């Protein structure tokens, strides 16, 4: 892992198209950073991204289409089964 020391306002560049700017350090523990990246580069907090990644893996897959075909053959619909919460 590359480790860099940066001051507030200084910048890290990745490739020609990603810039990470150190904005602020609060209470010596929380660092605010700004990230400039092309729109096709997803940028997320890792702990949240990991949760969504796991849920996508659970929800997705070849079985999804099979489930839909099976549900359609059952003749039921989402409207009929709606949770009225």
């Amino acid at each position, binding site marked *: 892992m590359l480790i860099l020391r940066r001051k507030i306002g200084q910048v890290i560049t990745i490739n020609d198209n990603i810039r990470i700017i150190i904005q602020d350090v609060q209470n010596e523990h929380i660092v605010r950073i700004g990230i400039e990246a092309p*729109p*096709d*580069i*997803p940028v*997320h*907090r890792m702990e*949240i*991204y990991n*949760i*969504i*990644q*796991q*849920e*996508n*893996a*659970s*929800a*997705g*897959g*070849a*079985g*999804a*289409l099979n*489930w*839909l*075909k*099976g*549900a*359609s053959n*059952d003749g*039921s*619909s*989402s*409207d*009929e*089964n*709606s*949770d009225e*919460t």
Partner: protein
Amino acid sequence: MAAAATKTVMKPEAISNEAFFFPQGLAGFSDAHEFGFIYEGHGDIVCLQSIDSPEAAFLLTPWDEERLGHVPKLPNEQCSCISIDDQSHIMWMVVLNPFADKEWVTANLRAPIALNLEARLGLQCIRADSELEIRYRWMKQPS
């Protein structure tokens, strides 16, 4: 404004024919960019399937404002990713999980799908709010 616009474009049949491009892919499937919609006639549920990687397939259903409240607000940088100038033109859908619970099909409210129907562009919008449910009980499992 957003509510009316969303409801007018929420019929799954309207999005079933042409491929959509997801510039960022989906979380865990970042290499899958081109997706097609498959409609099997089951209510408002469609299957979003990667054209390149068919194992990347998800069940989606339109965001229901009566049950879920207003549609999410897409951050500006993500609007540019799917070429959206006016947020009322976004079609919002939620990803369903029919495998997580024996009794319920659940909906992930933390990472809905935003679609630009005109440009055929899509994005999974990952929301930071930890109070949003990842497995919201959407509907009973078909018997």
